[in-house]
């Protein structure tokens, strides 16, 4: 080990392995309870192996047609993904390229993302065909976060990729995403965006429950009874997906008595929230009060 390495090792801010308390075990159980694994990739790979040649051929012929709208919303049900419930399975969905490349005249490219719901491997393959090593991904997020860049990686030399993302501001809305790849850029690069979730799709990232665009925007929800919150949500065709009880442990619960008080809410999936509830009302901290006032300040 060189002197420099020894110096870096000496400033390690966590030199000892953590003491493992019950929190780690609880987290493991919560994770197993909260989500289920995605289907094996092997199945998807096989499928792409069949459809990618067709996609390539049609893209050359200039076929454009994939909608940026989430399936089943305002597309008149014509999107094959709306009936299969999974994007990119039907032959029509697979027929269009997911990215459109336009030279910008200065040696760079403008890339328009035509399908936010495609398998990231498809983007990668389309970039690769153009000689770029770029990974692009979109993760489902609640409305107030949709459209945000969540991570980016660049080679660290030269200009980075620029991006423009807009029109993500409603749960049923699409997003217009375009990237500007500077001349000479080859990668490796990676960009990850939060996109609107499809109906029934659980959010990977959730904003504040009362942020603009979220279900409880302009609702004074803290300490409502569970029944009152249900009524507020019902007016918006929304519901409570699950509860968490026992505030210290945050234990999952399918239901709680209707007169329990709402302590916290998090967006869960389109039209669904996760609710922390307790028998007793929550004692709000000054920070929570300030956050509540701030959230309500712009409301009528």
């Amino acid at each position, binding site marked *: 080990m060189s002197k420099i*390495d020894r*110096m870096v090792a000496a400033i390690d801010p966590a030199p000892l392995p953590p003491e493992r*308390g019950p929190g780690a075990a609880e*987290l493991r159980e919560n994770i197993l309870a909260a989500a289920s694994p995605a289907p094996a990739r092997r199945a998807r790979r096989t499928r792409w192996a069949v459809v990618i040649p067709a996609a390539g051929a049609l893209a050359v012929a200039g076929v454009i047609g994939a909608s940026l709208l989430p399936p089943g919303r305002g597309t008149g049900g014509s999107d094959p993904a709306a009936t299969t419930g999974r994007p990119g399975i039907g032959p029509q969905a697979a027929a269009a390229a997911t990215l459109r490349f336009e030279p910008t005249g200065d040696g760079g490219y403008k890339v328009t993302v035509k399908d936010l719901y495609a398998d990231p491997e498809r983007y990668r393959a389309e970039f690769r065909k153009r000689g770029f090593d770029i*990974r692009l991904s979109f993760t489902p997020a609640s409305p107030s976060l949709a459209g945000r860049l969540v*991570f980016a990686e660049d080679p660290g030399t030269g200009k980075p990729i620029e991006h423009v993302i807009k029109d993500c501001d409603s749960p049923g809305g699409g997003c217009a995403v375009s990237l500007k790849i500077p001349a000479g850029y080859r990668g490796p690069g990676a960009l*990850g965006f939060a996109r609107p979730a499809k109906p029934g799709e659980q959010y990977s990232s959730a*904003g504040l429950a009362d942020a603009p665009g979220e279900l409880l925007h302009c609702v004074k929800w803290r300490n409502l009874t569970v029944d009152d919150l249900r009524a507020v949500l019902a007016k918006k065709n929304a519901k409570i997906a699950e509860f968490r009880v026992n505030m210290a442990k945050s234990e999952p619960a399918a239901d709680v008595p209707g007169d329990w008080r709402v302590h916290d809410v998090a967006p869960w999936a389109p039209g669904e929230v996760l609710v922390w509830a307790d028998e007793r009302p929550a004692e709000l901290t000054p920070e929570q009060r300030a956050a509540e006032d701030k959230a309500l300040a712009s409301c009528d």
Partner: protein
Amino acid sequence: MRDRFEAIYDACYPAIHQYVARRAETPDDAADAISETFLTAWRRIHDVPEGEAALHWLYGVARRVLANQRRGAVRRAGLSDRLRDELAASAGTYELPEGLEHVRAAFDALPERDREVLALACWEGLTGEQIGRVLGCTGVAARIRLHRARKRLAKEIGVTGEGRTASVLRGEHL
């Protein structure tokens, strides 16, 4: 599948906890990042590689999760509340060894990509090949990045003689 996740969780938890604790800005962020990293592993259990590569895959996920946190106010639906309390309770126990303030300052002043390769090499103790796996680049590219990062840090803190010796990492030559 469940058994496999449990085995990976139990084997990798301490290392991921430590990785995140070294980099997260607050105990809350650390709890969220650990939670998000393993949630991703469970959701993508089919993608998690076998053997020791699983840990490097998880480091890569944790790295993205932390970058994600720094870019936006993302909050996880409380899977890790107890862990959050434990981390908050143990926060503030670390003290920088005396006389190393200038090293820490110089390290902090480096670009993120330099800090990350140095930290993976010197804190997590990874080889160039393994760093490549975490960062999604080749082992050669990782070693080059490490070499440059060392040179920049050496220059910052005025250490000389970092030529050939600096390029040796666990028996690997650049």
